[in-house]
Protein backbone atom coordinates (compact mmCIF):
# COMPACT_ATOMS: atom_id res chain seq x y z
CA UNK A 1 0.00 0.00 0.00
CA UNK A 2 2.88 2.34 0.69
CA UNK A 3 4.15 4.65 -2.03
CA UNK A 4 7.28 6.78 -2.31
CA UNK A 5 6.57 10.19 -3.76
CA UNK A 6 7.40 12.59 -0.97
CA UNK A 7 9.43 10.00 0.86
CA UNK A 8 11.38 8.88 -2.22
CA UNK A 9 14.68 10.13 -0.77
CA UNK A 10 13.97 9.40 2.90
CA UNK A 11 15.87 6.11 2.93
CA UNK A 12 18.97 7.37 1.15
CA UNK A 13 22.09 7.64 3.20
CA UNK A 14 22.80 11.36 3.61
CA UNK A 15 19.79 12.15 1.42
CA UNK A 16 19.46 15.40 3.32
CA UNK A 17 22.75 16.63 1.89
CA UNK A 18 22.64 18.73 -1.23
CA UNK A 19 25.15 16.64 -3.14
CA UNK A 20 23.24 13.39 -2.65
CA UNK A 21 19.84 15.03 -3.09
CA UNK A 22 21.00 16.52 -6.40
CA UNK A 23 22.14 13.15 -7.66
CA UNK A 24 18.57 12.06 -7.10
CA UNK A 25 16.98 14.95 -8.91
CA UNK A 26 16.75 17.76 -6.36
CA UNK A 27 16.34 21.21 -7.92
CA UNK A 28 15.76 19.50 -11.28
CA UNK A 29 12.54 21.43 -11.91
CA UNK A 30 14.02 24.91 -11.81
CA UNK A 31 14.80 25.36 -15.51
CA UNK A 32 11.30 24.26 -16.37
CA UNK A 33 9.90 26.52 -13.66
CA UNK A 34 11.56 29.69 -14.85
CA UNK A 35 10.56 28.94 -18.45
CA UNK A 36 6.91 29.00 -17.34
CA UNK A 37 4.80 32.01 -16.49
CA UNK A 38 3.81 32.28 -12.81
CA UNK A 39 0.13 31.93 -13.77
CA UNK A 40 0.94 28.68 -15.56
CA UNK A 41 2.51 27.33 -12.39
CA UNK A 42 -0.59 28.25 -10.40
CA UNK A 43 -2.79 26.56 -13.02
CA UNK A 44 -0.71 23.40 -12.88
CA UNK A 45 -0.99 23.26 -9.08
CA UNK A 46 -4.73 23.92 -9.28
CA UNK A 47 -5.06 21.13 -11.84
CA UNK A 48 -3.16 18.74 -9.57
CA UNK A 49 -5.89 19.12 -6.96
CA UNK A 50 -3.25 19.49 -4.21
CA UNK A 51 -5.01 20.41 -0.97
CA UNK A 52 -3.38 21.99 2.05
CA UNK A 53 -1.84 19.35 4.29
CA UNK A 54 -1.86 21.45 7.46
CA UNK A 55 -5.33 20.33 8.45
CA UNK A 56 -7.94 22.39 6.65
CA UNK A 57 -7.44 20.84 3.21
CA UNK A 58 -7.92 24.06 1.25
CA UNK A 59 -6.80 23.74 -2.41
CA UNK A 60 -3.30 25.22 -2.61
CA UNK A 61 -3.51 26.74 -6.07
CA UNK A 62 -6.86 28.37 -5.30
CA UNK A 63 -5.45 30.05 -2.19
CA UNK A 64 -2.56 31.48 -4.21
CA UNK A 65 -5.10 32.89 -6.65
CA UNK A 66 -6.56 35.06 -3.86
CA UNK A 67 -3.50 37.32 -3.81
CA UNK A 68 -4.46 40.81 -4.95
CA UNK A 69 -2.53 42.07 -7.95
CA UNK A 70 -0.46 45.23 -8.16
CA UNK A 71 -0.61 46.39 -4.55
CA UNK A 72 2.95 47.61 -4.71
CA UNK A 73 3.59 45.78 -1.44
CA UNK A 74 5.92 42.81 -1.03
CA UNK A 75 4.32 39.37 -0.97
CA UNK A 76 5.40 37.01 1.80
CA UNK A 77 5.40 33.24 2.01
CA UNK A 78 5.19 31.68 5.48
CA UNK A 79 5.83 27.96 5.68
CA UNK A 80 4.00 26.38 8.59
CA UNK A 81 6.28 23.97 10.36
CA UNK A 82 4.69 24.33 13.76
CA UNK A 83 3.45 20.72 13.74
CA UNK A 84 1.83 20.84 17.17
CA UNK A 85 -1.52 19.15 16.67
CA UNK A 86 -1.39 16.09 18.94
CA UNK A 87 -0.78 12.89 16.93
CA UNK A 88 0.83 14.79 14.04
CA UNK A 89 4.45 13.96 13.28
CA UNK A 90 5.02 14.07 9.55
CA UNK A 91 6.57 17.39 8.57
CA UNK A 92 9.70 16.84 10.61
CA UNK A 93 10.62 13.87 8.38
CA UNK A 94 10.74 16.29 5.46
CA UNK A 95 12.80 18.83 7.42
CA UNK A 96 15.36 16.24 8.43
CA UNK A 97 15.40 13.68 5.64
CA UNK A 98 14.71 15.74 2.53
CA UNK A 99 14.88 19.46 3.34
CA UNK A 100 15.95 20.29 -0.22
CA UNK A 101 12.63 18.99 -1.52
CA UNK A 102 10.94 21.61 0.63
CA UNK A 103 13.36 24.36 -0.36
CA UNK A 104 12.73 23.53 -4.03
CA UNK A 105 9.00 23.72 -3.23
CA UNK A 106 9.54 27.13 -1.64
CA UNK A 107 11.25 28.33 -4.82
CA UNK A 108 8.35 27.02 -6.93
CA UNK A 109 5.70 28.61 -4.72
CA UNK A 110 7.59 31.90 -4.41
CA UNK A 111 7.96 32.21 -8.17
CA UNK A 112 4.27 31.42 -8.69
CA UNK A 113 3.07 34.01 -6.18
CA UNK A 114 5.77 36.62 -6.86
CA UNK A 115 7.34 36.49 -3.42
CA UNK A 116 10.96 37.13 -2.53
CA UNK A 117 10.89 36.53 1.19
CA UNK A 118 10.00 33.29 2.94
CA UNK A 119 9.77 32.68 6.67
CA UNK A 120 9.74 29.10 7.86
CA UNK A 121 8.03 28.98 11.23
CA UNK A 122 9.29 25.94 13.12
CA UNK A 123 8.18 24.89 16.59
CA UNK A 124 10.74 25.56 19.31
CA UNK A 125 10.84 21.98 20.54
CA UNK A 126 12.32 20.83 17.22
CA UNK A 127 15.89 21.39 18.35
CA UNK A 128 17.86 19.01 16.12
CA UNK A 129 15.35 19.54 13.33
CA UNK A 130 15.92 23.27 13.22
CA UNK A 131 19.66 22.68 12.95
CA UNK A 132 19.17 20.23 10.08
CA UNK A 133 16.90 22.67 8.31
CA UNK A 134 19.25 25.61 8.75
CA UNK A 135 22.18 23.52 7.51
CA UNK A 136 20.25 22.69 4.34
CA UNK A 137 19.30 26.32 3.80
CA UNK A 138 22.95 27.33 4.22
CA UNK A 139 23.92 24.73 1.64
CA UNK A 140 21.28 26.01 -0.76
CA UNK A 141 22.54 29.58 -0.37
CA UNK A 142 26.11 28.49 -0.97
CA UNK A 143 25.15 26.59 -4.11
CA UNK A 144 23.18 29.56 -5.40
CA UNK A 145 19.72 28.06 -5.12
CA UNK A 146 18.79 30.85 -2.73
CA UNK A 147 19.92 34.46 -2.69
CA UNK A 148 20.12 37.16 -5.33
CA UNK A 149 19.88 34.92 -8.38
CA UNK A 150 18.14 31.64 -7.81
CA UNK A 151 20.00 29.02 -9.86
CA UNK A 152 21.34 31.80 -12.10
CA UNK A 153 17.88 33.09 -13.00
CA UNK A 154 16.77 36.63 -12.51
CA UNK A 155 14.87 35.85 -9.33
CA UNK A 156 15.79 36.83 -5.78
CA UNK A 157 14.76 34.75 -2.81
CA UNK A 158 15.61 35.01 0.88
CA UNK A 159 14.60 32.23 3.28
CA UNK A 160 14.65 32.81 7.04
CA UNK A 161 13.91 30.31 9.80
CA UNK A 162 11.84 31.67 12.68
CA UNK A 163 11.68 29.57 15.83
CA UNK A 164 8.56 29.34 17.92
CA UNK A 165 8.81 28.73 21.64
CA UNK A 166 6.08 26.38 22.76
CA UNK A 167 2.60 27.51 21.71
CA UNK A 168 0.23 25.26 19.76
CA UNK A 169 -1.86 28.25 18.75
CA UNK A 170 1.03 29.57 16.64
CA UNK A 171 0.20 26.80 14.17
CA UNK A 172 -2.96 28.75 13.42
CA UNK A 173 -1.97 30.84 10.45
CA UNK A 174 -2.58 34.31 11.88
CA UNK A 175 -1.21 33.37 15.31
CA UNK A 176 1.88 32.33 13.37
CA UNK A 177 2.11 35.73 11.66
CA UNK A 178 1.77 37.55 14.99
CA UNK A 179 4.56 35.41 16.35
CA UNK A 180 6.88 36.31 13.46
CA UNK A 181 6.07 39.96 14.11
CA UNK A 182 7.32 39.52 17.66
CA UNK A 183 4.03 39.31 19.50
CA UNK A 184 2.03 36.84 21.55
CA UNK A 185 0.51 34.25 19.24
CA UNK A 186 -3.04 35.57 19.41
CA UNK A 187 -4.88 34.86 16.16
CA UNK A 188 -6.37 37.72 14.17
CA UNK A 189 -9.99 38.19 13.18
CA UNK A 190 -10.64 37.33 9.51
CA UNK A 191 -11.32 39.01 7.14
CA UNK A 192 -9.02 40.44 6.06
CA UNK A 193 -7.48 37.12 5.11
CA UNK A 194 -3.68 36.88 5.09
CA UNK A 195 -3.65 36.73 1.28
CA UNK A 196 -4.85 40.35 1.38
CA UNK A 197 -3.30 41.58 4.62
CA UNK A 198 -0.92 39.21 6.36
CA UNK A 199 2.65 39.55 7.57
CA UNK A 200 3.53 43.22 8.27
CA UNK A 201 0.19 44.11 6.67
CA UNK A 202 1.31 42.72 3.30
CA UNK A 203 -0.22 39.98 1.13
CA UNK A 204 0.89 36.64 2.58
CA UNK A 205 0.48 32.99 1.68
CA UNK A 206 0.73 30.43 4.46
CA UNK A 207 1.24 26.80 3.53
CA UNK A 208 2.12 23.67 5.43
CA UNK A 209 5.55 22.04 4.98
CA UNK A 210 4.09 19.00 3.28
CA UNK A 211 1.97 21.09 0.90
CA UNK A 212 5.10 22.95 -0.20
CA UNK A 213 7.16 19.77 -0.43
CA UNK A 214 4.59 18.26 -2.80
CA UNK A 215 5.29 20.92 -5.43
CA UNK A 216 8.51 19.60 -7.03
CA UNK A 217 6.78 16.32 -7.99
CA UNK A 218 3.81 18.17 -9.45
CA UNK A 219 6.02 20.44 -11.48
CA UNK A 220 8.34 17.70 -12.66
CA UNK A 221 5.81 15.02 -13.53
CA UNK A 222 2.76 17.20 -14.11
CA UNK A 223 -0.67 17.54 -12.53
CA UNK A 224 -1.95 14.35 -14.16
CA UNK A 225 0.82 12.24 -12.67
CA UNK A 226 -0.05 13.60 -9.23
CA UNK A 227 -3.74 12.92 -9.77
CA UNK A 228 -2.90 9.33 -10.64
CA UNK A 229 -2.63 8.90 -6.87
CA UNK A 230 -5.60 9.24 -4.58
CA UNK A 231 -9.21 9.83 -5.47
CA UNK A 232 -10.97 12.20 -7.85
CA UNK A 233 -11.42 14.95 -5.27
CA UNK A 234 -8.63 14.01 -2.88
CA UNK A 235 -5.63 13.60 -5.10
CA UNK A 236 -2.07 12.67 -4.31
CA UNK A 237 -0.30 11.11 -1.39
CA UNK A 238 0.01 11.96 2.28
CA UNK A 239 2.49 11.26 5.03
CA UNK A 240 0.21 9.56 7.53
CA UNK A 241 1.26 9.25 11.16
CA UNK A 242 -0.15 6.22 12.90
CA UNK A 243 0.15 6.16 16.67
CA UNK A 244 -1.50 4.72 19.75
CA UNK A 245 -2.37 1.07 20.18
CA UNK A 246 -0.99 -0.55 17.03
CA UNK A 247 1.80 -3.05 16.59
CA UNK A 248 3.79 -0.88 14.20
CA UNK A 249 3.22 2.80 14.83
CA UNK A 250 5.05 5.19 12.53
CA UNK A 251 4.96 7.49 9.54
CA UNK A 252 3.79 5.94 6.27
CA UNK A 253 3.30 7.57 2.88
CA UNK A 254 0.06 6.40 1.31
CA UNK A 255 -2.15 7.55 -1.51
CA UNK A 256 -5.37 9.14 -0.31
CA UNK A 257 -8.55 7.09 -0.45
CA UNK A 258 -7.48 3.81 1.16
CA UNK A 259 -9.85 2.08 3.63
CA UNK A 260 -8.82 3.16 7.12
CA UNK A 261 -9.11 -0.21 8.82
CA UNK A 262 -7.17 -1.95 6.08
CA UNK A 263 -4.36 0.55 6.61
CA UNK A 264 -4.42 -0.01 10.37
CA UNK A 265 -4.31 -3.75 9.78
CA UNK A 266 -1.87 -4.12 6.87
CA UNK A 267 0.39 -1.11 7.29
CA UNK A 268 0.47 -0.59 11.04
CA UNK A 269 0.20 -4.25 12.03
CA UNK A 270 -3.27 -4.02 13.55
CA UNK A 271 -4.37 -3.37 17.11
CA UNK A 272 -1.55 -4.33 19.46
CA UNK A 273 -1.40 -7.25 21.87
CA UNK A 274 -4.25 -9.04 20.09
CA UNK A 275 -6.75 -6.66 21.63
CA UNK A 276 -9.92 -5.38 20.03
CA UNK A 277 -10.55 -1.95 18.59
CA UNK A 278 -12.52 0.61 20.55
CA UNK A 279 -12.18 3.67 18.37
CA UNK A 280 -10.05 5.55 15.86
CA UNK A 281 -9.13 9.21 15.77
CA UNK A 282 -8.67 9.81 12.05
CA UNK A 283 -6.69 13.03 11.64
CA UNK A 284 -5.15 14.48 14.79
CA UNK A 285 -6.65 15.00 18.24
CA UNK A 286 -9.03 17.71 17.08
CA UNK A 287 -10.95 15.42 14.73
CA UNK A 288 -14.09 13.61 16.02
CA UNK A 289 -13.53 9.98 17.00
CA UNK A 290 -14.92 7.09 14.94
CA UNK A 291 -16.44 3.95 16.47
CA UNK A 292 -15.22 0.60 15.09
CA UNK A 293 -18.46 0.37 13.13
CA UNK A 294 -18.02 3.77 11.54
CA UNK A 295 -14.37 3.05 10.88
CA UNK A 296 -15.36 0.03 8.76
CA UNK A 297 -16.67 2.19 5.93
CA UNK A 298 -14.39 5.21 6.07
CA UNK A 299 -11.60 5.82 3.59
CA UNK A 300 -8.62 8.12 4.04
CA UNK A 301 -9.78 11.10 2.01
CA UNK A 302 -11.46 14.45 2.66
CA UNK A 303 -14.88 13.43 1.29
CA UNK A 304 -15.28 10.15 3.12
CA UNK A 305 -14.22 11.79 6.38
CA UNK A 306 -16.81 14.55 5.91
CA UNK A 307 -19.49 11.94 5.16
CA UNK A 308 -18.63 10.31 8.46
CA UNK A 309 -18.91 13.69 10.21
CA UNK A 310 -15.25 13.89 11.00
CA UNK A 311 -12.19 15.33 9.28
CA UNK A 312 -9.12 14.25 7.39
CA UNK A 313 -7.19 16.82 9.42
CA UNK A 314 -3.45 16.35 9.46
CA UNK A 315 -3.48 12.63 8.77
CA UNK A 316 -2.55 11.72 12.34
CA UNK A 317 -4.38 8.45 12.96
CA UNK A 318 -4.69 7.31 16.58
CA UNK A 319 -5.84 3.78 17.31
CA UNK A 320 -7.59 3.15 20.63
CA UNK A 321 -7.84 -0.37 22.04
CA UNK A 322 -10.49 -1.85 24.32
CA UNK A 323 -8.69 -0.76 27.50
CA UNK A 324 -8.94 2.97 26.86
CA UNK A 325 -10.97 4.90 29.40
CA UNK A 326 -12.73 7.46 27.20
CA UNK A 327 -13.53 9.71 30.16
CA UNK A 328 -9.87 10.02 31.06
CA UNK A 329 -8.96 10.44 27.41
CA UNK A 330 -11.33 13.41 27.22
CA UNK A 331 -9.73 14.83 30.36
CA UNK A 332 -6.32 14.55 28.66
CA UNK A 333 -7.66 16.32 25.55
CA UNK A 334 -9.40 19.16 27.37
CA UNK A 335 -6.28 19.73 29.46
CA UNK A 336 -4.26 20.20 26.27
CA UNK A 337 -6.58 22.69 24.59
CA UNK A 338 -7.14 24.66 27.78
CA UNK A 339 -3.40 24.85 28.34
CA UNK A 340 -2.87 26.04 24.77
CA UNK A 341 -5.65 28.64 24.67
CA UNK A 342 -4.07 32.02 23.86
CA UNK A 343 -6.42 33.66 26.35
CA UNK A 344 -7.83 36.20 23.93
CA UNK A 345 -11.46 35.07 23.69
CA UNK A 346 -13.55 34.55 26.83
CA UNK A 347 -15.47 31.45 25.64
CA UNK A 348 -12.20 29.63 24.97
CA UNK A 349 -10.13 30.92 27.89
CA UNK A 350 -12.85 30.48 30.52
CA UNK A 351 -15.03 27.86 28.84
CA UNK A 352 -12.28 25.30 28.33
CA UNK A 353 -11.27 25.94 31.93
CA UNK A 354 -14.78 25.14 33.12
CA UNK A 355 -14.85 22.02 30.99
CA UNK A 356 -11.58 20.91 32.54
CA UNK A 357 -12.89 21.46 36.08
CA UNK A 358 -16.05 19.51 35.31
CA UNK A 359 -14.32 16.54 33.68
CA UNK A 360 -11.83 16.38 36.55
CA UNK A 361 -14.71 16.30 38.99
CA UNK A 362 -16.29 13.47 36.99
CA UNK A 363 -13.01 11.52 36.92
CA UNK A 364 -12.68 11.95 40.70
CA UNK A 365 -16.07 10.28 41.01
CA UNK A 366 -17.75 13.40 42.31
CA UNK A 367 -19.74 14.20 39.19
CA UNK A 368 -23.47 14.13 38.56
CA UNK A 369 -25.49 13.35 35.46
CA UNK A 370 -26.14 17.07 34.99
CA UNK A 371 -22.37 17.58 34.62
CA UNK A 372 -22.29 15.46 31.48
CA UNK A 373 -25.12 17.48 29.99
CA UNK A 374 -23.40 20.67 31.06
CA UNK A 375 -20.28 19.60 29.17
CA UNK A 376 -22.37 19.14 26.03
CA UNK A 377 -24.00 22.50 26.53
CA UNK A 378 -20.61 24.15 26.99
CA UNK A 379 -19.41 22.62 23.72
CA UNK A 380 -22.33 24.30 21.94
CA UNK A 381 -21.76 27.62 23.64
CA UNK A 382 -18.02 27.78 22.98
CA UNK A 383 -17.84 26.50 19.42
CA UNK A 384 -17.59 29.11 16.66
CA UNK A 385 -17.85 31.94 19.16
CA UNK A 386 -14.15 32.70 19.13
CA UNK A 387 -11.66 34.41 16.82
CA UNK A 388 -9.95 31.18 15.78
CA UNK A 389 -10.99 27.53 15.77
CA UNK A 390 -8.72 26.34 18.60
CA UNK A 391 -11.78 26.12 20.82
CA UNK A 392 -13.67 24.11 18.20
CA UNK A 393 -10.63 21.85 17.92
CA UNK A 394 -11.49 20.92 21.50
CA UNK A 395 -15.30 20.94 21.51
CA UNK A 396 -15.79 18.99 18.25
CA UNK A 397 -13.89 15.90 19.38
CA UNK A 398 -15.08 16.17 23.01
CA UNK A 399 -18.69 16.19 21.84
CA UNK A 400 -18.02 13.11 19.73
CA UNK A 401 -16.79 11.11 22.74
CA UNK A 402 -19.67 12.34 24.90
CA UNK A 403 -22.21 11.25 22.31
CA UNK A 404 -20.65 8.04 21.02
CA UNK A 405 -19.41 6.70 24.34
CA UNK A 406 -22.06 8.24 26.56
CA UNK A 407 -22.54 5.16 28.71
CA UNK A 408 -18.93 5.40 29.91
CA UNK A 409 -19.47 8.94 31.09
CA UNK A 410 -22.77 7.99 32.67
CA UNK A 411 -21.09 5.14 34.51
CA UNK A 412 -18.75 7.62 36.17
CA UNK A 413 -21.61 9.69 37.54
CA UNK A 414 -24.34 7.17 38.16
CA UNK A 415 -24.16 5.19 41.37
CA UNK A 416 -26.80 2.78 40.13
CA UNK A 417 -24.77 1.88 37.11
CA UNK A 418 -21.51 1.47 38.98
CA UNK A 419 -23.11 -0.68 41.66
CA UNK A 420 -24.89 -2.69 38.97
CA UNK A 421 -21.56 -3.24 37.25
CA UNK A 422 -19.94 -4.21 40.54
CA UNK A 423 -22.73 -6.66 41.34
CA UNK A 424 -22.36 -8.37 38.01
CA UNK A 425 -18.71 -9.15 38.58
Amino acid at each position, binding site marked *: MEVKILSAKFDLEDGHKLEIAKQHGAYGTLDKLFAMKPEEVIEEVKASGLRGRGGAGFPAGVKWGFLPKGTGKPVYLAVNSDESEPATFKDRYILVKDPHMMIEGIIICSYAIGSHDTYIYIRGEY*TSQVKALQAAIDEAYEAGYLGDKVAGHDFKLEVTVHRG*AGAYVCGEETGLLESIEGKKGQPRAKPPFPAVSGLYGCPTIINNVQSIASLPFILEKGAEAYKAYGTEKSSGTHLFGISGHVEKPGMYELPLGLPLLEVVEKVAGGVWKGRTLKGVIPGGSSTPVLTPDEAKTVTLDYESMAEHKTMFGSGGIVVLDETVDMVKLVENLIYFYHHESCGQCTPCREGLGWMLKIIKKVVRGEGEMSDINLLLELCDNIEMKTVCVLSAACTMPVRSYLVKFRDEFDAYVSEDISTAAANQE
Partner: protein
Amino acid sequence: MSDRSQLISTGEPFKFDQERDTEFERLIKRYPERESMILPALWLTQEQEGWISAEAIAYIADRIGTFASKVFECATFYTMYHLHPMGKYHICVCRTLSCWLRDKQAIVDFLKDEIGIEPGQKSEDGRFSLEEVECLGHCGTAPVVQINGEFHEEMDVEKLKALLAELN
Protein backbone atom coordinates in the same frame (compact mmCIF):
# COMPACT_ATOMS: atom_id res chain seq x y z
CA MET B 1 -2.34 29.18 29.89
CA SER B 2 -0.11 28.93 32.85
CA ASP B 3 0.89 31.73 35.20
CA ARG B 4 4.39 32.78 34.30
CA SER B 5 4.42 36.35 35.42
CA GLN B 6 7.37 36.49 37.82
CA LEU B 7 10.72 37.85 36.70
CA ILE B 8 13.89 37.41 38.72
CA SER B 9 16.67 39.99 38.94
CA THR B 10 20.26 38.82 39.06
CA GLY B 11 21.53 42.19 40.23
CA GLU B 12 24.16 42.03 37.46
CA PRO B 13 24.00 43.79 34.10
CA PHE B 14 23.27 41.51 31.13
CA LYS B 15 24.63 41.61 27.61
CA PHE B 16 25.10 39.25 24.68
CA ASP B 17 28.50 37.61 24.36
CA GLN B 18 30.44 38.06 21.12
CA GLU B 19 28.88 35.04 19.41
CA ARG B 20 25.28 36.04 20.23
CA ASP B 21 26.00 39.61 19.34
CA THR B 22 27.09 38.62 15.86
CA GLU B 23 24.09 36.33 15.45
CA PHE B 24 21.75 39.12 16.60
CA GLU B 25 23.18 41.48 13.99
CA ARG B 26 22.94 38.82 11.27
CA LEU B 27 19.32 38.04 12.06
CA ILE B 28 18.01 41.56 12.43
CA LYS B 29 18.77 42.19 8.76
CA ARG B 30 16.34 39.42 7.83
CA TYR B 31 13.26 41.24 9.08
CA PRO B 32 11.69 44.48 7.84
CA GLU B 33 10.63 45.35 11.40
CA ARG B 34 12.90 45.22 14.42
CA GLU B 35 10.29 43.82 16.80
CA SER B 36 10.44 40.54 14.90
CA MET B 37 13.72 40.06 16.76
CA ILE B 38 11.96 39.65 20.12
CA LEU B 39 11.60 35.86 19.90
CA PRO B 40 15.06 35.27 18.35
CA ALA B 41 16.67 37.53 20.99
CA LEU B 42 14.94 35.65 23.80
CA TRP B 43 16.29 32.41 22.31
CA LEU B 44 19.82 33.83 22.11
CA THR B 45 19.57 34.88 25.75
CA GLN B 46 18.36 31.49 26.86
CA GLU B 47 21.12 29.75 24.89
CA GLN B 48 23.69 31.95 26.58
CA GLU B 49 22.39 31.95 30.16
CA GLY B 50 19.98 29.02 30.34
CA TRP B 51 17.17 31.33 31.42
CA ILE B 52 15.84 34.86 31.05
CA SER B 53 16.27 37.43 33.81
CA ALA B 54 14.70 40.84 34.38
CA GLU B 55 17.97 42.44 33.25
CA ALA B 56 17.93 40.40 30.04
CA ILE B 57 14.40 41.59 29.24
CA ALA B 58 15.50 45.21 29.65
CA TYR B 59 18.60 44.62 27.53
CA ILE B 60 16.64 42.99 24.68
CA ALA B 61 14.13 45.84 24.66
CA ASP B 62 16.99 48.32 24.48
CA ARG B 63 18.81 46.46 21.71
CA ILE B 64 15.67 46.25 19.60
CA GLY B 65 14.37 49.68 20.48
CA THR B 66 11.03 48.58 21.84
CA PHE B 67 9.15 48.55 25.14
CA ALA B 68 10.30 46.10 27.79
CA SER B 69 6.62 45.21 28.28
CA LYS B 70 6.51 43.78 24.75
CA VAL B 71 9.50 41.57 25.43
CA PHE B 72 8.01 40.59 28.79
CA GLU B 73 4.76 39.69 27.05
CA CYS B 74 6.52 37.20 24.77
CA ALA B 75 8.79 35.84 27.49
CA THR B 76 5.73 34.99 29.59
CA PHE B 77 3.41 33.82 26.79
CA TYR B 78 5.76 31.28 25.21
CA THR B 79 6.22 28.39 27.60
CA MET B 80 9.68 27.33 26.41
CA TYR B 81 11.30 30.47 27.78
CA HIS B 82 12.57 29.80 31.28
CA LEU B 83 12.09 32.68 33.67
CA HIS B 84 14.28 31.09 36.33
CA PRO B 85 17.27 28.74 36.21
CA MET B 86 16.48 25.12 35.37
CA GLY B 87 18.29 22.02 36.56
CA LYS B 88 21.53 20.97 34.90
CA TYR B 89 19.38 18.35 33.22
CA HIS B 90 15.99 19.66 32.25
CA ILE B 91 13.71 16.70 31.64
CA CYS B 92 10.49 17.16 29.68
CA VAL B 93 8.00 14.31 29.49
CA CYS B 94 5.21 14.48 26.90
CA ARG B 95 1.84 14.17 28.61
CA THR B 96 -0.42 14.35 25.56
CA LEU B 97 -2.64 11.82 23.83
CA SER B 98 -0.38 9.30 22.08
CA CYS B 99 2.21 9.30 24.88
CA TRP B 100 -0.59 9.02 27.44
CA LEU B 101 -1.96 6.00 25.56
CA ARG B 102 1.46 4.37 25.78
CA ASP B 103 1.87 4.96 29.49
CA LYS B 104 3.78 8.17 29.90
CA GLN B 105 2.52 8.12 33.49
CA ALA B 106 4.89 5.29 34.39
CA ILE B 107 7.75 7.51 33.29
CA VAL B 108 6.53 10.53 35.23
CA ASP B 109 5.95 8.42 38.36
CA PHE B 110 9.42 6.89 38.08
CA LEU B 111 11.06 10.28 37.72
CA LYS B 112 9.11 11.74 40.61
CA ASP B 113 10.30 8.88 42.76
CA GLU B 114 13.86 8.77 41.52
CA ILE B 115 14.56 12.50 41.67
CA GLY B 116 12.12 13.31 44.42
CA ILE B 117 10.43 16.25 42.71
CA GLU B 118 7.08 17.03 41.13
CA PRO B 119 6.71 18.30 37.56
CA GLY B 120 7.43 22.02 37.61
CA GLN B 121 10.12 21.65 40.29
CA LYS B 122 13.91 21.53 40.48
CA SER B 123 15.90 19.17 42.68
CA GLU B 124 17.67 20.74 45.63
CA ASP B 125 21.13 19.93 44.29
CA GLY B 126 20.19 21.69 41.06
CA ARG B 127 20.88 18.63 38.92
CA PHE B 128 17.39 17.99 37.65
CA SER B 129 14.26 19.86 36.77
CA LEU B 130 11.14 18.10 35.57
CA GLU B 131 8.34 19.32 33.36
CA GLU B 132 5.33 17.72 31.74
CA VAL B 133 4.92 19.18 28.26
CA GLU B 134 2.44 18.95 25.41
CA CYS B 135 2.76 16.82 22.27
CA LEU B 136 6.36 16.88 21.04
CA GLY B 137 5.61 15.72 17.50
CA HIS B 138 7.05 12.24 18.00
CA CYS B 139 3.78 10.41 18.67
CA GLY B 140 4.70 7.42 16.51
CA THR B 141 7.56 6.59 18.87
CA ALA B 142 5.68 7.36 22.09
CA PRO B 143 6.27 7.83 24.91
CA VAL B 144 8.79 10.58 24.40
CA VAL B 145 11.16 12.37 26.73
CA GLN B 146 13.35 15.38 25.95
CA ILE B 147 16.45 16.00 28.05
CA ASN B 148 18.12 19.36 27.47
CA GLY B 149 16.43 19.46 24.08
CA GLU B 150 17.53 16.00 22.98
CA PHE B 151 14.78 13.55 22.04
CA HIS B 152 14.56 10.07 23.54
CA GLU B 153 11.87 7.96 21.90
CA GLU B 154 10.02 4.74 22.76
CA MET B 155 10.92 5.29 26.38
CA ASP B 156 10.22 3.00 29.28
CA VAL B 157 11.40 2.93 32.87
CA GLU B 158 14.31 0.58 32.12
CA LYS B 159 15.64 2.74 29.31
CA LEU B 160 15.24 5.81 31.42
CA LYS B 161 17.20 4.25 34.28
CA ALA B 162 20.04 3.51 31.89
CA LEU B 163 19.88 7.01 30.51
CA LEU B 164 19.99 8.65 33.93
CA ALA B 165 22.94 6.47 34.91
CA GLU B 166 24.90 7.93 32.00
CA LEU B 167 24.33 11.51 33.10
CA ASN B 168 26.92 12.89 35.46
